[in-house]
């Protein structure tokens, strides 16, 4: 079972992970964290191939995917 966790304390809603994901697993949501940033959310977990791109490109180390 693949797990994608977004750390709402660290995420700044930059959406880079959303843009880089090759399978459109993520989308910017309407969830606002305590700092006022709109967090990404998982909308298509089944499409995730665990390529780990979202983890690699995140400027805040705020997203994690269970590894292969």
């Amino acid at each position, binding site marked *: 079972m693949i797990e994608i966790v977004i*750390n709402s304390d660290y995420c700044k809603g930059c959406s880079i992970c959303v843009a880089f994901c090759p399978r459109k697993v993520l989308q910017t949501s309407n969830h606002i964290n305590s700092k006022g940033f709109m967090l990404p959310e998982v909308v298509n977990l089944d499409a995730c191939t665990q390529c780990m*791109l979202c983890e*690699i490109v*995140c*400027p*805040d180390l705020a997203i994690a995917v269970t590894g292969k």
Partner: protein
Amino acid sequence: MLKHPMLKYIREEGPAGKRLPFILCPGCGAGQVLNYTLHAVDEIINQPGVKKEDFVFISGIGCSSRLTSHYLNFDSGWTLHGRALPVATGVLLANPKLKVIVFTGDGDAAAIGGNHFIHAFRRNINITVICVNNGLYGMTGGQVAPTTQPFTITPTTPYGNVEEAFDLCKLATVAGASYVSRWTTAHPFQTIKAIKKGIANKGASFIEILSQCPVHEHKTPVEMINALKGMTVSIDKSMNSNKIPVGEFHFAPRPEWTERYEAIIEKCNERIS
């Protein structure tokens, strides 16, 4: 909670409180460069014979230099504006076995640090210089930098920049760096590979990473990353293109400073005994 794998190299908090989230702006390219660097270091640390305590991070002053400040779970020094390279040189003089990685920015390295830039590469001292180039002075408000394109409007060039920009990779190559490459934040895997090669190179390595400053350019991070991808082209295809070439420009290992000096120490001690 499942955590980002690179957080094991970060000091998330200490007795005086939390240190994260990073002080960097949302979508800052410097944060991505930190992520890429930690990925590269992580791969090297897992090689046999490599010790985590041998890694030392030195930075100057600026947004990219904040990457050391107080975040890293490594030996680090957040030093003076433009002077990361001489401090890194001093570290190696005291202990040449350390793996010294320098975070610097375009203003830090090429303006105030310009002199040290050319000499560190001339000496081919064993450091890996990671230069986050966003074409301006981020920390102080977006002023013009030696890497800003002509005609750009910035807080100190309100009528347009009248100067040409440095090509930092050319500068590093001519100064004498033994490994020079340029990538952008839009090229994560290539950047990680380049940083690994830079660390492995016994000599002065220069890795320039074109990076976005969304706040001072008034664009979204994603827009800027797409632009970085669009404005660059791989070196082998750059002949007939106006785009910025990216890739490995120069790789010519040559005698490293501490190696040459080691020969002197050996010789001196020979004569004494």
